[in-house]
């Protein structure tokens, strides 16, 4: 019985200790995510009106790669792009995926924002505006200087052809900000007014059938906007 009383005494002391709880005014040990801020560019970022997002030979970037800084409550920050859900407010103008922006039109702008799990969002004043730099002029040339292309004052090229080719056509782009980019052929869609006589492959290879004298119009377009015209005056042998 004495043992039992001792145990009860110990229990009472233990219960008294339980009543004295610790309190802690320190900030949470695990930091909290406080904000998502898009970084890496100024508030407004420009993007050339091209579909090919690879680097240009001139060194001009054809892409806008956005990153986000995650701000924590303990003052630290970390950078990411792929963890976030990116959104363009004008998805017909600019598409964005994992922070990589690509142009979908020759003109316009779009506001880009990022979010995480539909819970954390960039503040509206911290979104980035991506503005397309329009392609204003495309100049078609022949790589091997076999053909002589003459341009009129309207920018339409004309060339006389009396050989079936093939000919390697090249396109140089001139943008609204006066930047010229050499060979934007991978962005160009070629079309022919008479594909039974003249065809141009996606890489710009022109093949001509010399069955009869004919005039064929070759056009280039980006984002459904025609930006160059080449008139082929074909002379049969």
């Amino acid at each position, binding site marked *: 019985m004495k043992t039992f009383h001792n145990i009860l005494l110990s229990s009472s002391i233990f219960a008294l200790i339980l009543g004295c709880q610790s309190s802690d005014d320190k900030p949470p040990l695990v930091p909290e995510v406080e904000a998502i801020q898009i970084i890496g560019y100024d508030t407004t970022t420009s993007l050339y009106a091209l579909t090919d997002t690879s680097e240009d030979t001139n060194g001009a970037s054809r892409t806008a790669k956005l990153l986000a800084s995650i701000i924590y409550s303990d003052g630290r920050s970390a950078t990411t792009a792929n963890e976030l859900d990116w959104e363009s407010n004008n998805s017909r103008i600019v598409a964005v995926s994992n922070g990589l922006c690509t142009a979908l039109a020759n003109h316009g702008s779009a506001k880009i924002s990022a979010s*995480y799990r539909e819970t954390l969002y960039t503040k509206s004043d911290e979104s980035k505006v991506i503005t397309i730099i329009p392609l204003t002029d495309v100049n078609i040339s022949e790589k091997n200087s076999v053909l002589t292309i003459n341009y009129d004052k309207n920018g339409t090229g004309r060339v006389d052809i009396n050989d079936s080719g093939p000919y390697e056509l090249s396109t140089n782009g001139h943008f609204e900000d006066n930047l010229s980019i050499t060979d934007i052929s991978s962005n160009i869609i070629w079309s022919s007014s008479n594909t039974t006589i003249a065809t141009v492959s996606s890489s710009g290879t022109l093949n001509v059938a010399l069955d009869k004298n004919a005039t064929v119009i070759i056009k280039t377009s980006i984002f459904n906007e025609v930006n160059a015209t080449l008139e082929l005056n074909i002379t049969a042998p």
Partner: protein
Amino acid sequence: MRVLLLLSFLYLSLFAEAMSYIGLSIEDSTEFFVINSETQDASSPQYKLKAGYGDIAGYTVEASFSYMDYATNVFSDNDGKALMLDITLYKGWDLGYDLYPYLGVGIGMGEMDVERELESSLSFSSFNFGGGLRYVINHTYDFDIGLNYKLRTWQTISLVADKINVTSHLLNPYIGINVHF
């Protein structure tokens, strides 16, 4: 046939010694967190409702349901209530004088409310072991005192560009009473 009957009698004889019990205990849960070389401890009372089956001088299996209110700021400015379920296997011995020391090992799981931007609760699992002493007051009641250690692994916490894995170490001294039937 005779062997089967013999085994059946042997099996039933084990049940003759076994008893079921339910009990209540109050614990002081002192938990040590270590995250990114920073440490913090949290101390809160914990209340446990338990049910067991077995021989307290042999093996006992116990399931327990615990409640505690963290009232700390380890994961958020206001960490909240936690509910836990533990399964423990005990081995006890009869020392005489109605005293039954025991050791136990088990596993547990639970969930705690937090007020974070990305999580409203955090789940955790634990590995438990400990020991204690039962004093059998009479055929129906025993008094229980002991100490448990728990290694607790918390749900990975997302920091968007980073993740934090949290483990904690708990010490739970406790007292309780069990009712046998």
